């Protein structure tokens, strides 16, 4: 059936101009691939080459790039992911999002490594992509439809679709893009598509077959990878059986579960929404990205319907953060968000802000902590732009600028915090502050070491800058492969050196000799996969360092692009609540000592005191200065 | 919120400045009745004031400056006649004959017809350490006057002349607007007056 075979990678990108309804094929430079790996890195590079700083994110000059990685389509474990990058309407800076939906596979097997959207369609349109190019089709019938039915319509024309809901159409700043049951969640990419009047994109898929260049090596590495994943208790145990909500109980125990708009860190009722409880209560089964071996995505029977189980972040932010502990209600809201196409993290953060603002007389709504009344209506109002929902649809930063309450608007650079309170894991605080897209937990997931594995002290600031940089680089590289970030548990923790060392020794080493400990960490599985697919020679350790440097390059490029939009040290901060307010659950009323960590971090990264990458740093990384 | 994080702050004290001012007020207070006897000009000024008139110079707020701790241990007449410095007040009484008496620093049981008060300790220090002249101090709102106002200017004139007597010229020139030329008395008289005032002021 498959007509063509691509060995390695196709290096073709499809650039579409919506204004003129034209498209062209763009060859991806070999050096760019070498430097940026693919996925997020390459997507950013494509965007960097095209985007003028200072454009309106919702204007025709903004561009959105969907980029797949080298691994996708080869059958590498947990590789079923693709990345989108754009300038975010929520934050005004770069946003990148990763998604495990079927669109990535369909795009890649239509023979395209990346998709670039320019301009703005005049009328609602949807795009059909095949190996030849793109067809522009009128979306009059689809415009105004929810994501479910719109996606069903679109999937008639291909294997994988991207679709926005009414939230995206109404330019809700945190609208997301749906593909299958998964989402390009953060940064409001749905609004970017909505502003471009693109209801959906469907890729035909299945037109080409992708095979690695060095098959033998690939198969060997693959096997090692599977083994690691099967050995790791996170990837083969808790995540596999309880989903990401396996995090609820450890978070609650570590005091990093946000309660009542981040005024508390743990709650007695938190067990009600834990993965363990829900697995039993809703009789969950797997519903995952493809391909996947970890299988963290689950569905279950809730209120008599088969529903996707809300992920941990959704649970945390629509649950304890609003003082709600009923998973059924949270699932209702989650369904509503999927239906309209909105990011649940930003929504949760914004709702919590609205509740506190209501309590403090800044706005008048029905919302109240611990009460479910009015929440569903508010979600609808936000998606449809009714009443005060129109303001909340701009996110908590905008709303708090208009109505006040900036001291309890929990966002960094406009992006709301994920469901981890860094007062219980200060390294995560630094990571939130420095993450490129805003308060992102996926930029450098240091809290796993601090709060879950006991491999770093949660309140010490020593060497945290090093850990944050290390993980930021590693994750940026991972997102460029592009592979699931949860594989990190397996790749990083399963190699014999770390596996056989006692945790307290690691903690001691990590906290006091972090560079040594982290440099001894073996990440080779990832670069080995990438090298084998492209048929490049893999040199042990050195290639791993090169891989980490590529990650660093991707991170610094994104940072550099952000600084061109006006980001500097003043934005690398945390919500005032985290910096200045202690919590009652914490006898010492700790806060995040950000400043000293941040200074060291800048130095380590090669940024100047104002947080701007120096020319030297950019040159070292081979980033062309514009 | 834990309100104990923000404790109340009770006002502290500046004991040295208090003692300094008490001694200054005591000295001036003791000098005035003597000066009223020997200096014709002061005498003339006091004649303008009503009889049975009590006035005082003090530092506000009164409640913050109680009498010195040892006052209670002294016999009544010592306190009544102001034989030692007791506090930050200077009470003068003009009796029915027009004679001026210094009555110490104890305001209890007295009724004042005129009360001139420095607004605070630092204001009094500015004047009594001669960093500000009396007129400048007045212009800078360093003190408030209560009671029969027209006498206040008279009293300030008296203070000016007493300062000229008590202080060496180099300091007194800073303290008053115009250093007098002593037209009306021979220079030896001035010095004799000065000695008398000093002697009488510092003997009991």
């Amino acid at each position, binding site marked *: 059936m498959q007509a063509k075979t691509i060995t390695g990678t196709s290096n073709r990108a499809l650039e579409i101009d919506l204004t003129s309804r034209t498209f062209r094929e763009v060859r991806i430079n070999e050096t760019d691939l070498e430097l940026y790996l693919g996925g997020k890195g390459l997507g950013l590079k494509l965007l960097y080459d095209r985007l003028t700083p200072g454009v309106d994110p919702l204007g025709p000059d903004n561009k959105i790039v969907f980029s797949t990685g080298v691994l996708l389509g080869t059958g590498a474990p947990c590789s079923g992911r693709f990345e989108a990058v754009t300038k975010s309407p929520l934050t005004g800076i770069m946003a990148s999002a990763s998604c495990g939906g079927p669109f990535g596979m369909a795009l890649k097997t239509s023979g395209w490594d990346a998709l670039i959207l320019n301009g703005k369609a005049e009328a609602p349109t949807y795009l059909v992509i095949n190996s030849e190019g793109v067809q522009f089709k009128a979306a009059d019938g689809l415009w105004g439809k929810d994501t479910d039915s719109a996606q069903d319509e679109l999937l008639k024309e291909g294997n994988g679709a991207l679709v926005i809901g009414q939230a995206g159409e109404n330019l809700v700043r945190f609208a997301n893009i749906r593909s299958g049951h998964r989402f390009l969640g953060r940064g409001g990419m749905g609004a970017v598509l909505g502003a471009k009047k693109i209801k959906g994109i469907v890729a035909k898929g299945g037109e080409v077959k992708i095979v690695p260049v060095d098959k033998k090596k690939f198969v060997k590495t693959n096997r090692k990878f599977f083994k690691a994943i099967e050995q790791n208790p996170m990837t083969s145990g808790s995540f596999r059986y309880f989903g990401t909500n396996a995090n609820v109980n450890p978070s609650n125990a570590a005091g990093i579960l946000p309660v009542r708009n981040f005024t508390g860190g743990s709650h007695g009722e938190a067990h009600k929404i834990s993965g363990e409880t829900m697995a039993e209560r809703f009789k969950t089964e797997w519903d995952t990205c493809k391909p996947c071996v970890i299988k963290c995505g689950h569905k279950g029977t809730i209120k008599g319907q088969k529903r996707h189980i809300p992920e941990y972040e959704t649970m945390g932010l629509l649950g304890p953060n609003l003082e709600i502990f009923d998973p059924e209600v949270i699932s209702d809201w989650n369904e509503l968000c999927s239906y309209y196409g909105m990011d649940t993290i930003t929504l949760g953060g914004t709702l919590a802000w609205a509740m506190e603002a209501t309590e403090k007389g800044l706005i008048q709504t029905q919302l109240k902590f611990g009460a479910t009344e009015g929440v569903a209506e508010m979600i609808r109002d936000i998606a449809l732009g009714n009443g005060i929902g129109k303001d909340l649809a701009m996110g908590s930063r905008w709303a708090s600028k208009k109505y006040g309450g900036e001291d309890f608007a929990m966002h960094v650079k406009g992006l709301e915090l994920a469901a981890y309170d860094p007062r219980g894991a200060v390294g995560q605080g630094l990571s939130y502050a420095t993450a490129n897209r805003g308060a992102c937990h996926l930029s450098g997931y240091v809290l796993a070491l601090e709060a879950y594995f006991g491999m770093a002290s949660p309140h010490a600031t020593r060497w945290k800058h090093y850990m944050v940089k290390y993980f930021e680089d590693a994750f940026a590289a991972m997102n460029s492969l592009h592979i699931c970030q949860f594989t990190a548990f397996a790749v990083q923790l399963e190699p014999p050196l770390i596996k056989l060392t006692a945790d307290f020794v690691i903690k001691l080493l990590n906290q006091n000799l972090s560079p040594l400990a982290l440099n001894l960490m073996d990440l080779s599985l990832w670069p080995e996969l990438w090298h084998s697919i492209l048929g490049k020679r893999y040199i042990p350790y050195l290639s791993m360092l090169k891989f980490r440097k590529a990650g660093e390059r991707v991170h610094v490029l994104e940072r550099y692009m952000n600084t061109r939009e006006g980001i500097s040290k003043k934005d690398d901060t945390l919500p005032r609540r985290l910096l200045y307010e202690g919590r009652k659950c914490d006898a010492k009323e700790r806060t995040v000592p950000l400043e000293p960590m941040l200074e060291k971090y800048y130095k380590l990264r090669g940024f100047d005191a104002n947080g701007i990458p120096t020319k030297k740093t950019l040159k070292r990384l081979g980033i062309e200065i514009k | 919120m834990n309100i104990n994080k923000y404790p109340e702050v009770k006002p502290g004290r500046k004991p040295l400045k208090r003692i300094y001012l008490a001694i200054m007020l005591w000295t001036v207070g003791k000098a005035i009745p003597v000066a009223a006897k020997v200096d014709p000009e002061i005498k003339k*000024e006091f004649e*303008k004031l009503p009889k049975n008139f009590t006035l005082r110079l003090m530092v506000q707020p009164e409640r913050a400056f109680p009498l010195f701790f040892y006052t209670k241990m002294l016999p009544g007449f010592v306190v009544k006649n102001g034989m030692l410095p007791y506090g930050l007040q200077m009470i003068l009484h003009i009796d029915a004959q027009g004679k001026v008496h210094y009555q110490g620093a104890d305001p209890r049981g007295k009724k004042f017809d005129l009360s001139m008060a420095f607004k605070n300790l630092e204001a009094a220090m500015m004047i009594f350490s001669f960093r*500000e*002249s009396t*007129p*400048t101090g*007045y*212009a*800078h*709102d360093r003190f408030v006057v*209560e009671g*029969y*106002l*027209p*006498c*206040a*200017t*008279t009293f*300030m*004139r008296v203070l000016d002349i007493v300062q000229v007597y008590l202080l060496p010229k180099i300091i007194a*020139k*800073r303290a*008053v*607007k*115009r*250093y*007098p*030329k002593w037209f009306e008395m021979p220079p030896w008289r001035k010095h004799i007056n000065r000695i008398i005032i000093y002697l009488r002021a510092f003997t009991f």
Partner: protein
Amino acid sequence: MPLPSFYDFCCRVKTISGINTLEQIPSQLANMKAGRPMIISDKGVAATGLIQVVIQALGDQLQIGEVYDQVPVDSDYRVVDDAAKIYRTKGCDAIIAVGGGSVIDTAKGVNIVASLGGDTLLDYEGLGTVKRKLKPLVVVPTTAGTGSEMTLVAVIADPDRKIKMLFPSYFILPDLAVIDPRMTKTLPAALTASTAMDAMTHACEAYYCLEKNPLSDSFAFRAIQLISQHLLKVLQNPADLQGRLALANASAMAGIAFSNSMVGMVHNLGHTVGALCHVPHGVAMSIFLPYGLEYNLHRCADIIGELLFALAGPEIFAATPKSERPEKVVTFIRQMNQDLHTATTGKHPRCLKEVVDRNGAQLVSQSMLPAIAEAIMLDGARLTNPEEFLPTDALTVLSNAWEGSPLDLKKVNKGGSKVNY
């Protein structure tokens, strides 16, 4: 403008000014939640028909509780008690004072009794008895430049004890001062001249006396500019509302300036001749002003020299060498008095001997001068004069002022160190 080592400045009364400003009173009162004011005034004002002007301007937007026009020239506490009783029986909720200093002080007193209750003002004597915000008080000054609408003390006499009672409190400040040229439109020429010179004196003294500060300077400077530009024109054309408005503004600004920087020997002499010989305040001011400038010339020549700019304009200022400016200021003021004398056909006196009462009798005889000189010691204004001012000095000044001859600068007593502002 050097910043003094210490100053305070306060002019917290809301001022509204303009040609038809009286009409704004109802809405301003409504903002203060009052609608039934009592108008307090004196016979003199009533006789000129100004109260009718006010009542007409207030229109039917509010009810006037009572028009009380019985305030005497030297008001005392019995008048206050009387008015307060009427205020209560008529159920008023605000006061509009129309008149000069005495009326305004009385109104302040009435406000104390009416707002805080009780029968007599005597209950509230002394510091710290007025402890809360009083009822709305609107003042409409009719004579220029008393400044008492801006001050936070009410002075009310107690004839029984022969003293003036002081009621100092932040709470007795009026809420609103209304400057409307209609209030001064009908003022006769001689009075226009003397009230304007009164304001001029306030401003000049504010500019050189000890408590001066940049803010009072600035207000004083502008007041002088306005008066010197407009006074003669208004005298030539009494219906010139713009000019009247400028003069009224000038006197309000002079009031702000001197109530913050205090005044000096001119006021000292003025108060004394006022008390002893009943010389009208404004007249005394215009006569003594040149002497005040001359007497303090050696102390603050630079500062007095700056006044030439305000008085004569930049061209003359620039054309006069710096050393001659102070004398020129004095000459200028003298010339101004002379011009006013001419413009009012001799009704504006140039020296003390020209001051006469209604019947043409001389108010100040030469023999009274020593007594006046002695009495200056009872007035506080001498304290803020830059140079020491004693009865002997006063006598020199007075005899010159009586004759109308310039002061012999060599005879002014000097001594002491430089003045620190």
